[in-house]
């Protein structure tokens, strides 16, 4: 059994999902070898992995891994991993994980499971993954090795920080000859919190009536470091870009707190947020289906209630 965790970082800053997966592997009695890819700024992330229990961290280094290239990354991973006879290869189901692992699985010509919510290391490796945006889930068993799978962020708890310095091995990565070139990184005006990684999401529906009105949601979310989502109706009406859409043709999210403002609760939307720990609904219509799924329901005008909520949260933050 040799399990490899591809740990994700952004500019050297470790993504929390990597610690979540590390914690779960260790709970199952397997300490995975962690892999970090990049160019020169990986020591901090490696130490962080050690603190959470990793005993061995491999740094795959090459200047071409400093920025995104699905080909270079898959080439580098395959060149290294094919010498290690891995039984399992896992990574967080971030946009990068979802993009990278199918290529890696194809190189090994093995099965792939994306966006799993549970996994069990062993022979065979089995995973559970939601399908139909969470309307149901299924178990997937891998025949043959390695089992290649990505795991959804925010589902598993981070383990205990009681480890020490890991053994760090630096490997010159073989990146091959990638054909696609990243020519520019374009950042939109405001820096937004990633929806799929957010602990708190404030979401708006068509009742927001305009894109400008989403400001009240952004104001509220910013107090608690949350992200802003939108229903398909709001996206289709042009009030919010598609990358904010939560639901079956948008993102599936599992925050600690999901506040649905003026969202009636169509089956496609519920599918995308039903695994949230706590759901709050704010809606004028007391009969809205969302209230059937909400832990706390507030009947009233969101234009009145959301700013009040923002103020209450500000007061709370000021006292804590």
């Amino acid at each position, binding site marked *: 059994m040799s399990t490899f965790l591809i740990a994700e970082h952004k500019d050297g800053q470790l993504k929390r999902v990597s610690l979540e997966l590390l914690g779960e592997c260790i709970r199952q009695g397997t300490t995975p070898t962690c892999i970090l890819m990049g160019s020169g700024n990986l020591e901090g992330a490696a130490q962080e992995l050690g603190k959470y229990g990793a005993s061995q961290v491999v740094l795959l280094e090459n200047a071409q891994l400093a920025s995104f290239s699905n080909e270079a990354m898959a080439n580098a991973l395959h060149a290294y991993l094919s010498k290690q006879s891995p039984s399992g290869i896992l990574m967080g189901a971030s946009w990068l994980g979802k993009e990278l692992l199918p290529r890696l699985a194809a190189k090994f010509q093995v099965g792939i499971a994306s966006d799993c919510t549970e996994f069990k290391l062993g022979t065979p490796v089995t995973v559970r993954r939601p399908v139909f945006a969470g309307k149901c889930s299924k178990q997937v068993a891998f025949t043959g090795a390695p089992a290649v799978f990505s795991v959804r962020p925010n589902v598993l708890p981070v383990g205990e920080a009681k480890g020490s310095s890991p053994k760090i091995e630096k490997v010159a990565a073989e990146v091959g000859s990638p054909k696609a070139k990243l020519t520019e990184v374009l950042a939109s005006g405001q820096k937004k919190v990633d929806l799929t990684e957010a602990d708190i999401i404030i979401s708006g529906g068509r009742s927001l009536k305009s894109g400008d009105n989403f400001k009240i949601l952004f104001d509220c979310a910013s107090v608690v470091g949350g992200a802003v989502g939108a229903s398909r109706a709001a996206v289709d009406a042009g009030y919010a870009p598609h*990358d904010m859409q939560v639901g079956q043709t948008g993102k599936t999210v599992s925050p600690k707190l999901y506040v649905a403002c003026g969202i009636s609760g169509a089956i496609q939307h519920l599918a995308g947020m039903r695994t949230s720990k706590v759901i709050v609904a704010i809606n004028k219509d007391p009969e809205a289906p969302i209230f059937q799924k909400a832990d706390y329901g507030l009947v009233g005008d969101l234009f009145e209630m959301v700013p009040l909520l923002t103020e209450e949260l500000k007061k709370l933050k000021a006292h804590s």
Partner: protein
Amino acid sequence: MNILVLVKQVPDTETKIKITSDKKSIEKSDIKWVINPYDEFAIEQALKTKETLKTGTVTVVSVGPDRTVDALRTAIAMGADNACHVKADQELDTYLVSKALVEVIKKENAQLVFSGKQGIDDDQAATFGYVAELLGWPSASMVIKCDVSTDKIAVHREVEGGTRFAIEMPLPAVVAVDKGINTPRYASLPGIMKAKKKEIKTYSLADLGLGSEAPKTSVSDFALPPERQAGKKLSGDAATQVKELVKLLREEAKVI
């Protein structure tokens, strides 16, 4: 240019999912089957690309049982020139589907492959990347802008947190598109007439040299998530309800 579009037929998003008694699948008897919504954007982008280049053909390909032909005919009615059906009655995993699609891509001598960023049924978002790697082609996913010239393609790829990557790829290449890239056209009446008569190429897995291939994953134990129960409805005026909510979120739910 031969443009190929990978199309999947999926249950309509309105579908209430039920599970078969052996838990090995979903109940399929009462389902309205449609083209995967993301694949509609892929078909539209292929048609647009052909119109911009003023040359080429658009071929749609799908793997699945006989009903899959309906999805292919819908794509022809939208404007696709040709269609290929890989007939498979059993459900195939990403490995086998990708292998089959690669064989069709080679047979059709495609230079550009479009697909949706994921199927809304299985949510794997893996096939296009798997296919690209098997072919040794570059690929981009979550593409929301796409300009094709005769030998290369420039795309914008959505990344989390409001960032976009501009990526340039030489052809041949695989492009998986996201919602927002275009507005898919409706089938035209002449298109519908044409689609009815159009001959669709059909392959079995054996025809593609994959007759003895086995899937690399097996699925079981389909399960519905626990139903969420309706919780507390708060009362009072707006300010009272909001104050109560914050108290409950802090003291009862402990999420803030």
